[in-house]
């Protein structure tokens, strides 16, 4: 890939609008995410931050505007194009969403064997490597319901990584966890960020966003209300809405 292509944004969102019936939840979003960038999206519930994230891998359809990943536009009508796009974009959910009928190892192996036609041996080898990376090397044969929430979420991360995505979307991935389990998941995400993975994360963990993010986006009423490096945004918020949000979060 040429240097120019590397400099191009990996995710480009242009004038994106999305409504549920008459209720417009995203009112014209413009956002570029660079390769290797870590973007944290914060905001009140109902501000549209999760919806925006879910638009990026096509879990939500939008009515206007455009969205491109790696230069390829998202086309809802084409199942082929969606399949291509989703190979580029991994997603980790608040509720883990592991497949309960499959062992941990099989959870990680399923998509690569089906979508990338890996041999079972290759896929198993890769799954072992990824589980090792998230600190769960010994859980290959465990069933998801035998794991703690934090462990399940780390398996979900390994499962997403198995598709070797260019971007990883994290949708409030620690919100369903007991407080003592949040740290182990965030450490894995931080390590990914350090290794240069492009991350878009919706989060309520302000300290984590401050520490890991290159850029923080504050969403308010379906718009990108304020953008900036974490130091700037958290220390000297410019708009009253962000000031109010930050003081509410700190309480």
């Amino acid at each position: 890939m040429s240097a120019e292509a590397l400099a191009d944004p990996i995710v480009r969102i242009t004038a994106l609008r999305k409504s549920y019936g008459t209720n417009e939840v995203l009112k014209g979003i413009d956002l570029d995410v660079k390769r290797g960038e870590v973007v944290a999206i914060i905001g009140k519930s109902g501000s549209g931050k999760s919806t925006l994230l879910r638009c990026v891998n096509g879990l939500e359809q939008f009515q206007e505007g455009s969205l491109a990943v790696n230069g390829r536009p998202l086309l809802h009508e084409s199942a082929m194009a969606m399949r291509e796009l989703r190979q580029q974009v991994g997603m980790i959910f608040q509720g883990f969403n592991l497949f309960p009928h499959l062992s941990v190892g099989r959870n990680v192996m399923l998509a690569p064997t089906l979508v990338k036609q890996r041999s079972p041996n290759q896929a198993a080898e890769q799954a072992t490597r990824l589980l090792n990376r998230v600190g769960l090397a010994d859980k290959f044969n465990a069933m998801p319901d035998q794991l703690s929430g934090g462990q399940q979420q780390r398996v979900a991360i390994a499962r997403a990584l198995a598709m070797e995505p260019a971007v990883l979307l994290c949708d409030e991935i620690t919100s369903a966890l007991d407080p003592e389990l949040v740290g182990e998941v965030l450490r894995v995400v931080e390590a990914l960020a350090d290794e240069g993975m492009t991350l878009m994360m919706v989060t309520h963990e302000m300290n984590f966003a401050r520490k890991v993010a290159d850029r923080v986006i504050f969403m308010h009423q379906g718009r990108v209300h304020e953008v900036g490096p974490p130091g700037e945004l958290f220390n000297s918020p410019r708009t009253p809405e962000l000031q109010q949000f930050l003081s509410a979060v700190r309480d």
Partner: protein
Amino acid sequence: MIEFTLWDIVRNLLLALRWTAALSAIAFIGGGLVGALLLTLRLGLGRRTQRVIGAYVQLFQGTPLLMQLFLAYFGLALLGLDVSAWAAAALALTLYTSAYLVEIWRGCVDAVPRGQWEAAKSLALSFGEQLRHVILPQAGRLAIAPTVGFLVQVIKGTALASVIGFVELTKAGGMIANASFKPFLVFGCVALLYFALCFPISLFAQHLEGKSHVR
């Protein structure tokens, strides 16, 4: 007048029981296949298909099986098709069973959390792969008990095929009762035979239900 011994009665009823079992099996296998096809269409295609299949389900659930049997037998004859009682009964019971099974199974698919679909989708699985590897294994586990339970309804439903002249257990019972003048004994035996067929299946369904709760 010929004297009917108990063995004569039971022997003839047992012979007729074969047809009840065969009709049940056809209804269940045929209904299962049609139901599975309709379920896949309903999940994979748009709103319009859903509505058409919804109407199909309502039609068969909202009318008595007896009417469906009459319509299949006499209706097809009106259209110039010469159908045997066998074929008409098999057809009506297949459609009837499929309408119930598609609804039972749809409920089981709906019971699989949305997040499972989303996780499968975001891993770039195609619709067929999502269904086959993620959704159906989970829905299938939920579906076993109600499906086996419904089988009992189908077996008892085959009794209605007697009205179009199909000689299964109930019809045979009626004929033997008329000939032997022992209606109470004969129908008692008929009831016992239905029970012998259905009870083990009910037990099996309960056993499966218990199992799925423990999980």
